[in-house]
């Protein structure tokens, strides 16, 4: 029986079809499902050959402009790539490390960084020679971004940073191959009426003096990429390593979250598609009481419901990618024709929050269903489902923003700011 294929290429451009084909061909040689299972069992750091392979393929930070080492891809292309990355590695280790973090945040770092950071960190990360990411969560909290404790004080031409960041993806990888992080610190007094003000973003190299990585966490899933943290004790960062303008870090950070979350949405569609395909192969073959499992409504109807939700999610991600393309087409025809003003950043954030909430939960629930359909086989690591289920839970509980935070953003934009449950 031919393997189940749930991809529908008819809406894809010629280039997108080839992007997909190349990534799938590469994965067949380098990252088949049994290797995904094995590398998650063995744990971090993420295999160097896969980092280099992804970079050689050109999937990391494709949206960075060509003149700065990227490919100048639009967001529809990059979200399609993120979907294929989720498809080839449903544990989400690859997507979490190299789409959401390196690509979403790398693109944002590139936008606000100076030429030195671009050349020393961003472009090497595109080539797979360094790892760059985001460090925003602190031991005191993550969702309440404006209430962080890390500080930055100006001394001469330098900023002195202090505090601790935690639950950061890729610290061990950055330690191993070099790189650095987008770090938010408070650079002015906390204003009770506007706590999000006076936050400033810096690029902090992982090998900065005074920066000490903490022990990595033993996570439930996506174990091939590390989660950890670091303590900053009088870390001295040059003024030029400030990202964007002083005091605007909160706004840039929200933009970075948008860029990471949309790629999470794409990759979660890919995870769901792969789970459904792998499950379909099993339930069409496996017989019980004289019939294949797929013939029983209890299983078939659940499968169909997940399939519908997946395709609906795919359309939604595609819509949001179009909104992103309008947002970043600052110099292009969209801007010239006035269409670039179509969506406000808050409106885009609402849509991105919707996919960030919806699609990872769909992927997790689909993995959960598949484990029920397969029974003991689904629960074992012989199949991908339990690895996917543990991995994608990371997207649900908090990576790049917890589920309830997404709901607050969506509620604020649909019911109005008067109904925001916090100030």
């Amino acid at each position, binding site marked *: 029986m*031919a*393997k189940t*294929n749930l*991809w529908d*290429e008819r809406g894809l451009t*010629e*280039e997108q*079809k*080839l*992007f997909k*084909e*190349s990534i799938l*061909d*590469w994965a067949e*040689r380098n990252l088949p499902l049994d290797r995904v299972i094995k590398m998650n069992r063995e744990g971090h750091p993420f295999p160097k050959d896969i980092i280099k392979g992804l970079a*050689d*393929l*050109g*999937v990391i930070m*494709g949206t960075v402009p060509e003149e700065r080492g990227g*490919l100048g*891809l639009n967001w529809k292309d990059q979200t399609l*790539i993120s979907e294929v990355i989720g498809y080839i590695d449903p544990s989400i280790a690859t997507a979490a490390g190299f789409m959401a973090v390196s690509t979403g945040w790398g693109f944002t770092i590139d936008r606000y960084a100076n030429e030195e950071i671009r050349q020393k960190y961003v472009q090497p990360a595109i080539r797979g020679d360094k790892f760059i990411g985001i460090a925003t969560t602190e031991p005191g909290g993550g969702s309440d971004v404006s209430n962080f404790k890390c500080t930055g004080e100006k001394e001469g031409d330098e900023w002195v940073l202090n505090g601790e960041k935690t639950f950061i993806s890729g610290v061990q990888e950055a330690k191993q191959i070099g790189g650095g992080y987008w770090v938010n610190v408070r650079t002015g007094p906390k204003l009770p009426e506007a706590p999000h003000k006076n936050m400033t973003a810096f690029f902090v190299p992982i090998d900065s003096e005074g920066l000490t990585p903490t022990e990595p966490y033993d996570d439930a899933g996506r174990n091939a990429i590390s989660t950890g943290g670091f303590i900053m004790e009088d870390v001295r960062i040059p003024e030029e390593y400030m990202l964007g303008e002083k005091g605007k870090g909160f706004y840039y950070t929200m933009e970075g979250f948008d860029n990471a979350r949309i790629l999470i949405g794409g990759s979660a569609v890919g995870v769901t598609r792969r789970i459904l395909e792998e499950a379909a192969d099993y339930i069409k073959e496996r017989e019980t009481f004289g019939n294949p499992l797929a013939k029983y409504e209890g299983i078939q109807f659940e499968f169909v419901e997940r399939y519908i939700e997946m395709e609906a999610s795919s359309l939604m991600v595609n819509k949001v990618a179009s909104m992103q393309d309008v947002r970043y087409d600052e110099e292009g025809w969209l801007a010239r024709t006035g269409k670039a003003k179509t969506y406000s950043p808050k409106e885009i954030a609402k849509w991105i929050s919707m996919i960030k909430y919806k699609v990872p939960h769909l992927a997790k629930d689909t993995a959960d269903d598949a484990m029920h359909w397969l029974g003991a086989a689904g629960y074992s690591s012989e199949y991908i489902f339990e690895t996917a289920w543990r991995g994608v839970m990371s997207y649900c509980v908090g990576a790049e923003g917890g589920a309830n935070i997404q709901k607050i953003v969506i509620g604020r934009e649909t019911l109005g700011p008067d109904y925001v449950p916090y100030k």
Partner: protein
Amino acid sequence: MNGECMKFVVCVKQVPDTTEVEVDPETGTIIREGVPSVLNAFDEFALNVAVQLKESIDEDVEITALSMGPPQAKDALTKCLAIGADKALLLTDRVFAGADTWATAVTLARSIKKLGGADVIFCGQEASDGNTAQVGPEVAAHLGITQLTFVSEIEKIEDKNIICKKETDEGFLRTRCPLPVVIACMPTPGFLPKIPNMRDIIKGKRKPYEEWGFDDLGGEEEDYGLEGSESVVVRTYSPPPKGEGIIIDDEPETAVNKLMEYLEKEGIL
């Protein structure tokens, strides 16, 4: 024939992905609905060989990927441009539809003539859907040039000659052949084609791509497509499955005795 630079033409075909093909048990025909199309693997090998040869030659070489097929065959040519072809040409017209290998070769050969000829015309040894292995040799016949089939490796081009390795039943033949020539390429075991990366794909999309129809090639309509075909497909069917084999897994002496016993019992000996 030779312009300012050496010219390679690589003939390619878009075929159904054979890993996903199923045969209708009643009609015996391939179920094409919903089956993705891919670049024929033999042709992909030929293109890889052509690109490697180009990279090994000091003088300028231009590679044209050439295909005949429906408009969606553009996808296969887009991939060729990503892998390393310099330009692509699709021969597409309703007049060309239904062509057998003869009419296909007529169409390809005329387009190659119109392109100004080529020093080396590469093609795959066969296509994975028809497996006739006829189109390459027929293109050579229509152009009146030499053909080399089952070529697994090209060593070099020197003094207007191509030196290559041709697989034979006994082993291989290292042969030298004057240009122009049609080379039908046979993938070597374990060959892995180049996977174009995202940058290759974007660059490929910016390369020249053209489509030609009947009006561009000229001649008579009956030269092409179904009308120009010399063969007729009467029926396609899957051969009946063979019965289950018997494996005798034993010590040699016992195994031979068991085998002899079986052959005698079946009346074979």
